[in-house]
Each structure stands twice: as C-alpha cells, then as structure tokens.
C-alpha cells in the first residue's frame, strides 16, 4: 500500500492537511468532557442555571467549529484519495500498453481490467478511509488517555492501559484478519473460475454428461469459500465486542479506584463523569476502526495486486536509428526466442527479405510461427542472435520509427468500437477512397457497403461482425499502412478457401513493393511466395521455394498433404 503513495503527486498537500484537520477536530471533541466536568463541579453543584446553559452553548459552538474542520478534512481526504486513484489508473494503463507482451498474455486481459477497475477502486476507498477515520481513532484514543491523565493524574494507568490494550488487540486481530480475508478472496476466485469454465464448457459438459461432476466440484469450492468466510468474519466480529469488554473493564477499575479518589477528595464527581466519558470516546473510536477492517484488508490486498503488475517489466524502445535504404528490409541472423523454458520457442532463424519479396511461413501446430511474427514486431526480443529491419538491429529503433517500418495483421482480428472508418483510420490514412479500395482488396467492401459503408457501426471488439469479416477489415487496415514490411500472422485463417484465395491474390498485387511475411496453416496461401520457411517444433525444417521444398522437405510435402494422400483414408 505504501508504495502506491508515490501516486499522490499533486494531492500531497491535501493528503497531509486532511488528517491534520481531523486531528484538530478530534482535539476539539476532547475538550467537551472537560466542559461537562466543569459544569458538574461548578454551575450544577452551585445551582447556577445560566452558567449551565452557557456551558451547553459553548459545547454546541465547539462542535460546530469541529464540524467545519471535519468537513474540510472529508473534502481534502476525498480529493487526495480519488486523485491518487486516478493517478494510479493512468499510470497503470500506460504501463499495461508498454508491458512485455509475454507477461501480459500470462495475466490475461480480464485480470488486467480487474486491476484497473476493482483493485484501484478498492485501494482508493481504503486510502480515503485511512485518511478520514483510521488516523482519527488513535488521536481520539491517545488524546482521551492524555486528557484522563490531566483530569486525574493518580489514575493515569487506567486510560493508558485501556488504550494500549485495545490497540494491541486491534492490531493482532487485524493482522490475522487480513490474511484470513485474502484466503477468502482466493476461494471466491475459485468460484468465479469454475463458473467461467462451466459457461465456456456448456456443450462439452452436456455431451459427456458431466453435470453431476461439475456440481460436485463447485459444491466443494462453495463449501470451502463458506468456511473461510466464516473464519474471516469470526475475527472481524470479535473486534467490537472485544473493544467493548476492554473499555468496560477499564470503567470497572476506574469506578473502584475513582471511588476511593473521590472519597479522599483528590478528584470530584465531575472528574469521575469526565473520566467515564473519555473511556467511552476511546471505545467509539475503536469500534469505528473495527468496522474498517474489511475495507482496509481489501485495500491492502488490492494494492499488492496492483504493485505486482507495476513490477512487471516494460518493453523499452530504442534510442533511434536511421534505416539503411540499401540493406535488406528484414534480416534474421541466428535469431531465437525463449519464453524461459529449456527449449527455445523458436530458434535458428536465418532469413533475408528484400523489397518486393514475400516469405511464406508454414509449420506444425505449436511450431513457433506466431513467435516469429512477435519477433518481427518487437513484441518479443530475440534471446539469441539478432533481428534486423532495414539494416539496423530492431532494438535500436524508437517505437514510432519501428511502427513506420513494420506493420501487422494479426490472427485474432482486433477491432475497436466506433465506425469502420475509425478503425481504418488507425492506419494513419484519412482518405475515404483509399479506405474503400483497401476494403475491396480485402473482399470486405461488399458486406461493409451493405451496412452503412465507412460509417458502419463497430460495436465493442467488433462483435457485430463475424470472425471472417473482422479478419478482412483488419487486413484492409494493415494494407492501408505505409510501412514497407507487412506481417500477416494467419490473417485470413477464418476465411473459407474461396474467399481466402481471392483476398490473397489482391494482397499480392497491392504489396508488390513491400516485403511481406505471410504466416499460414494452409499451403495454398503461401506456395506462391518467393521463399518459404518451414517450422517444426521451434526449429527450421526447410527454407526455399515451393518447388525446392516439395523435392527436399518431407515435412513440407506432408503439410501440403500430397504424399500422405490415401494413407489416411
């Protein structure tokens, strides 16, 4: 939690002033029992009714002043907490777009969005409560103890003892509570995971008659959540009664000892009333803190989750470099990438690609094709060898430079809500006619014009288009981009063969002066490439033209399915 305090920037003054105002208010509140004691011993004992009324008015007046300070504190605390929340959110959002993509994939978008929404909100709420209430409680408690010493120095041990004891109990219970709450949170995550899993698996579960087993598993998760929740709340329920018992025990001691003091004349009855009052104030302050336990423990675990994301490394851009116009556009020298496991995800890559050339990439399942695309986009950085774009190591370029050199049409077409024009405009092109041409090339104009042309609405993630339609729009967007290197990562995989063949033909036409890396599962898509790279389990199994590979590469022939003909049937 403390680490997140650096995001207080711009709100530091508010964050410091808020508790200060609160403390002033608390001190004012602490004066009230003194007035009561004065009333009892002075005007009341003396029968001076106007003085009694004046004392009452003074108390009310002080409370109003206290309210002023308190409101100021509430406003400043709200501002500081909300401001910090927004700062965290903005920083986190930027961080997430610069995060190493391997880490981002492992976390999953759902979890990342949760960090931004729920976790930041909880940290913010916890911080606000901390500023507003948590700091008030110790001041009231300590102040109450100090005041009780001032009123009756001989009974100092009662207020101090009660305060210290109550705080120790509070801290111990809180510590245990926080860990129990985080266990409960994990069990809740299990429930959510199983629910999501079941909804995704509806068909398979029903097909395999797995309903009963799913239910049993879920019941087990529910029961252990229930147990951990009861265990956590048993602690949080303990705080209020425990505080009440401790304070009243102090009252009992006070009455016994105080009775003697009054008897001996060291203190007055009014003092005794004031002392009881202070103890009650300490009690109330403690109870308020107790009710915050859940909030604070949630905030702490949220803060830990947020920090864990901040700890993930960002991809650093290069210092900048000037592309060499004469060098090959794409050059891989012994490049390899490893996700950290023993084996490289892909390795031994040696490729040279010049302007106007196309490279087809094909391979078995999990052979590292998409990792290769990631290397060319600098989503992943080669762990061995190097990747050179236009004669420079890819790591030397700034983000902007690299993006003007290399562009991508991904397998998972990612559209954004807005219009088709807005999505195509991401390429940097704002010419309607060019956009229409690109859509025609990608065989997307037909269904786009049927809707509302370039103004067709795109709903969240493009879900109002089918998978194949999304891929075509995404392809059109890539075609609009000026970058000389185009990476197509299985970019037409959702299209049927007829449409794909037509699309690929126009792509070839449009990209005559670019270097194209075309990754596909289908041999028909890549056979017309100048060179073909065959990957198998992260290693290069063949590199050459279609004809050469048909002769020399057994795997290639099998991927094409020509020689295996008949053996399967």
């Amino acid at each position, binding site marked *: 939690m403390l680490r997140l305090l650096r995001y207080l920037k711009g709100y530091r003054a508010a964050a410091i002033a808020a508790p200060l105002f609160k403390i002033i208010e608390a001190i004012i509140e602490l004066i009230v029992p003194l007035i009561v004691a004065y*009333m*009892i011993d002075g005007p009341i004992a003396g029968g*001076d*009714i106007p003085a*009694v009324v004046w004392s*009452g*008015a003074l*108390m*009310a007046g002080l*409370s109003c002043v206290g309210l002023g300070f*308190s409101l100021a504190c509430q*406003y400043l605390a*709200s*501002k500081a907490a*909300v401001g910090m929340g*927004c700062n965290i959110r903005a920083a986190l959002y930027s961080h997430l*777009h610069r995060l190493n993509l391997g880490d981002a994939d492992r976390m999953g*978008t759902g979890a990342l969005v949760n960090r*931004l929404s729920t976790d930041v909100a909880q940290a*913010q709420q916890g911080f*606000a409560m901390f500023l507003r209430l948590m700091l008030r409680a110790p001041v009231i408690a300590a102040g109450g103890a100090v005041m009780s010493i001032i009123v009756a120095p001989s009974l100092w041990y009662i207020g101090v003892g009660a305060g210290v004891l109550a705080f120790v109990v509070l801290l111990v219970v809180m510590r245990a509570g926080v860990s129990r709450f985080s266990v409960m949170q994990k069990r809740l995550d299990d429930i959510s995971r199983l629910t*999501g*899993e*079941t909804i*995704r698996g509806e*068909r398979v579960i029903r097909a*395999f008659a797995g309903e009963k087993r799913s239910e049993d598993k879920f019941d087990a998760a529910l029961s252990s959540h*229930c147990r951990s*929740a*009861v265990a956590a*709340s048993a602690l949080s*329920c303990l705080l209020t009664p425990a505080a*009440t018992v401790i304070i*009243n*025990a102090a009252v009992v001691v006070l*009455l*016994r000892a105080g*009775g*003697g003091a*009054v*008897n001996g004349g060291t203190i007055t*009855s009014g003092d*005794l009333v004031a002392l009881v009052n202070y103890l*009650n104030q300490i009690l109330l302050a403690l109870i308020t803190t107790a009710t915050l336990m859940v909030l604070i423990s949630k905030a702490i675990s949220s803060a830990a989750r947020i920090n864990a994301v901040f700890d993930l490394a960002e991809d650093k851009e290069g210092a900048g470099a000037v592309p060499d116009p004469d060098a090959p556009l794409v050059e891989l020298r012994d490049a390899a990438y490893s996700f950290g496991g023993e*084996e490289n995800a892909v390795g031994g890559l040696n490729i040279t690609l010049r302007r106007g050339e196309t490279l087809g990439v094909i391979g*078995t*399942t*999990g052979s590292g094709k998409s990792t290769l695309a990631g290397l060319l986009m600098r989503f992943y950085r080669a762990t061995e060898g190097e990747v050179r774009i236009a004669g420079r190591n890819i790591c030397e370029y700034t983000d902007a430079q690299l993006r003007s050199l290399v562009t991508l049409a*991904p397998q998972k077409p*990612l559209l*954004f809500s807005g219009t088709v024009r807005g999505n195509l405009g*991401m390429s940097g092109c704002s010419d309607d006619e060019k956009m229409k041409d690109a859509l025609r090339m990608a065989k997307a104009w037909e269904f786009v014009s049927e809707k509302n042309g370039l103004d067709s609405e795109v709903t969240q*993630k493009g879900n109002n288009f089918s*998978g*194949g339609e999304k891929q075509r729009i995404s392809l059109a967007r890539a075609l609009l981009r000026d970058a000389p290197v185009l990476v197509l990562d299985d970019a037409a995989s959702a299209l049927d*063969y007829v449409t*794909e063949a037509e699309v690929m033909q126009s792509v070839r036409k449009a990209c005559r002066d670019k270097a194209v890396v075309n990754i596909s599962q289908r041999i*028909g898509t890549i056979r017309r490439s100048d060179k073909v790279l065959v990957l198998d389990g992260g290693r290069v199994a063949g590199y050459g033209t279609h004809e050469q590979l048909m002769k020399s590469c057994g795997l290639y022939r099998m991927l094409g399915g020509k020689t295996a*003909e008949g053996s*399967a049937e």
Partner: protein
Amino acid sequence: MNATRREKFSVIRRLLGCALAHKSCFFPGMLLVIAGTALSLLAPVLTGKAIDYALPGNTDFAMITRYCVIIAACVAVSGISVWTGNILLSRLAFLTVRDIRARLFGKLLTLPLSDIERHSRGDLMTRMTTFGENLSDGLYQGIMQLSAGIVTLAMTIACMYVMNWAIATLVVMLTPVSAVVSAAIAKRNRVTFARQSENMEKMSGLAEEQLSGTRVLRAYGRVAESENDFAKINADLFRGGLGSQFAGALVNPVSRIVNNIIYAIVAVAGGIFITGTLFGGWAAGIGAPLTFGGLSAFLAYANQFAKPFNDVTSVTAELQTAASAARRIFEITDGADEDKGGSDVIEHPVDGIAFEDVSFSYSDKPFMEHITFAAEAGNKIALVGTTGSGKTTVINLIMRFYDITGGRLIFDGENIERFPREDVRRSFGMVLQDTWLFSGTVRENIAYGKPDATDEEIRRAADAAHLDKFISTLENGYDTVVSGDGEELSEGQKQLIAIARVFLTSPEMLILDEATASVDAMTERAVQSAFADLLGGKTSFIVAHRLSTIRDSDLIVVMDKGHVIESGTHEQLVRANGYYTKMLKAAE
C-alpha cells in the same frame, strides 16, 4: 414506484425464506445479538449508579464493588453473546448465499442452451460473484445491524425513561432530526454512487477493448491516442469519484454534529434537573430527579445515539443492493429447465439420422430452412460451406442443444424428441473447434468422458491423438496442471486433448466440428487415420475447412446461408461442377 417497491419486498421476503433454511443459525444468532446488545446497554446505567456512591468522604465501597461486579458480568456475557451471535449470523448469511449460488450453478447446467447464451459470460459471472457478495453483505448487515440497531434504540430510550422521563422525552422529541438527516444523506449518496458506477462501467469497457487490442495499438503506434481517450474517462472518474467519495464522507461528520448538539442539550437539561434535585427539589416534585451518575449515564447514551440511525439507514441501502442482486440471480434460477426429452429407450446401434425439411431460427428471423438429408447407419457425413452457413447449427440440432422449429428430425427411425436428451447426447462423441479444457491435470482432462479409465487406457488414447510426444515434454507429464483457459497450450494441442478425450470414450457415433482446424495438416492426417481405425464403420458427422479430409465421405452436404445448396458424394459433386468444385479449386 409502488409496484417496484412491492417487488423489492417480495424479493427480500423470498431471500429471508432462503435464510430460514438455516434456522439453527437464524434464531439463536438473532437472539444472542439482541440479548447481548441489550445487556451491553445496561452498562451506562450501572456505571451511573456506581458513580452516585462515590461521594467525598462518604464513599460506599461495598455498593461500588457490587455494581462493578454486575457491570463486569453484564459486559462479559454481552461480549460473548454478541460475538457468538455475530458469528452465527455471518454463518447464516454465507450458508444462504452458498445455497443460492449452488442453485444458480445448477441452473447453468440445466437451463436450455439458448437461454444461457442469451447472457454474456461476464454477465453470468457477475451474477455469481459480485451479486452473490452483495447478497451475503446485505443479509448479514440487514439481519445483524437492523436487529442490533432497533434494540439499541429501544433499549436506550427505555433506560432513559427509567432514569428520568422528562429528559428522555426531550431526547425522543429530538430523534426525528437524526433520522431525517441520515436519510437525506443516504439518498444523496445513492444518486452520486449510481453516477460513479456508470463511469466505472465505461472505463472497464474501454480498458477491456483497448487492452485486448494492445498488439494492434502498439503495431500502429496508437498507444498515445488510447491514453488520451483513457485520460478523458479518467477525468470523469475524478469528478464523479470526488462527488461520491465526499458524499459518502458526509455521513459521519453530519451525524456527529447532530449527535453533539443532542449531547449538549442533554448536558444542559441534565444539569438543570440536578440543580432542581439538589436545590428546591422541584425535579423530584414532577417525578424526575437526577443524580450525577444519572447524568453520566445520559451522556453515555447521547454519545452513541446517532449510531443506530446511521446503521439503520446504511442497512436500507445495503438491503436495496441485496434485493436488486437477488432479483438478478432469481431471474436465472427461475428459468424453466431444459426438458429431459422423451422416455423411449434408444436401441443400439442407432439406425441412422435424417433431417426432413428442418427449419430453425434463433429469433423471429428464420436462420435455417428446408434442410433435408439422411445419414444411414455407418455413414460418414461431411458438412461444408462458408462461415456462418449453418453447419454448426446442424450439429447443435443433432446434439439437441437446440430444438428444431419446423420439419422433422429423425433419430433411429423415430422423432428425436421421443428419446431422452441425455441418451441422445451420450451416443455421440463430440469434438468442437472451440476446445474446452478445465483447470486440472492433463490426465483428468483426457479422462473427462470416462473418469474411471485406467492409466493404460488414457495413455493409449493420448497416443492415438498424437499427444504422447507433447505430453512427455511437459514437466509433470500427465499430471501437469493446465489452467482453465489452457493459455499455456496452443490451440492445436488443446484440440488434440479434446480428441483424446473422445478416443477414450469410443462412442457409437461421432461429431467433429472443425475438430482439427488448428492442427497442422500432417498431424491432422495421422489423427484422422486414428479416427478411422478406432471408429471405423461408425456414423459420423464432420464439419471441415480442409476438403481433402472429407473426400471419402458417403455424403457431402454443401451449405450456404442456412440452406443446403448441393449434396452428394465427392465424385457426384465434382461432376456437377458447382460450388463444391469452386471450393476445391481454391484449396489447391
């Protein structure tokens, strides 16, 4: 307004009905909380009595000791009983929510698929998690705070009346001020809170889309623009957040000032009554004498007089949230289950499946019409066509995930509706393009259709699906745990696991919906031949993009836009030189 309020009450009543299933927590818990709270409220009166025995030079130590013992006993008993009561009530809340969640989960498995798919996954998950939490909070707070709050109020007023009716009446007359103030603040809170949650939803929506699209944003250099969009929403969140945070922060100070003023009034009134008791005795004359100890007790009560009001108003807000959460959950649990289908017994082997002029629609718009084709026992039927042409829907109808809306679907010579749904489904082995793994070991995932399979059987199924090599590279082999999304595996590997799953069950008939779409052609051929060996001569339905794999089918059904446009064997279709031929050419 009235109708919705009545609805809310009926939801809350229903919720209480669910809670009453745990009577052993409900009533003892409530009794303990009420008794404990009441008992703890005696402490100020008793303390006051004791104070009255502390007089300069004339302190009655025996009486003070007696009161001390009584106070200690009261507080100890009350502490224990409030604690156990609270534990019981929170247990009650969690048990009730457990029941409701179990019911909701059960519904996810028994509702018709069409009803489930009407909701997004996120929507259903929110109902299970967030709304479930709202329920348990609402129930616990509702029962606990409400009973404690009401008891505190009643007990405080009663004790004050016992001590001094006049001051008590004064306090009771001031009571509405507290109530009105807390209610006004609570109302304002609800408005600002609703506005803020709208902003939050917008932010989550944007973040979800932009973060899942981060590859494109980075590749196209649009991260800065995306940050600007986010900053705009973030600014709204700041304004809205400040408003709702500050509104929430008003509750305490404002109720405290009301409280403090009542406190001052009680102090003044108490002072006047004490003087009235000490000098002149008029207070005793009207039957309302007051001592110093009495004043101390009054002040203690006044000190916490606002608390029950705050509790009760915050509870109403919690209860409202709980009620709307419960309504959203009951919406699902009240849905009618998928009917079990007929009760005829399927006679194995199944004698073919036939579509006779079948039509189907998801909504009022017809999606599929005039589908007619027949699969005889042992036939291999291929369904081909463009994306969205209705191939998968045909599969959904055969598996009875959806019901036809017109025509007849014949299964084993009878209308398919005469057989139990489960029996129809169990006679098929099914592999879908969108594979499903659950969090568990690789072994458990393969053995999903046959949990009692031996290791040897599992290994053989994995071999047949060409998984052996891959599994041997895993750190813990078959015992490697995969996450629910299986993100650590490639799509192809996931499909192979799903295929092994079917190999293990060796079903009577087979459905492969793009089952090898993410598997490379070489592995696919090997797996296909394993299918041929294992399931030779069994009725199968295959949806495939790669036409080479379905060439030898007994019947190829070519679909487009929800209609069958061609059907026949490979040779027949090639001779017809229609759409199928066009597809063949494109694939070369």
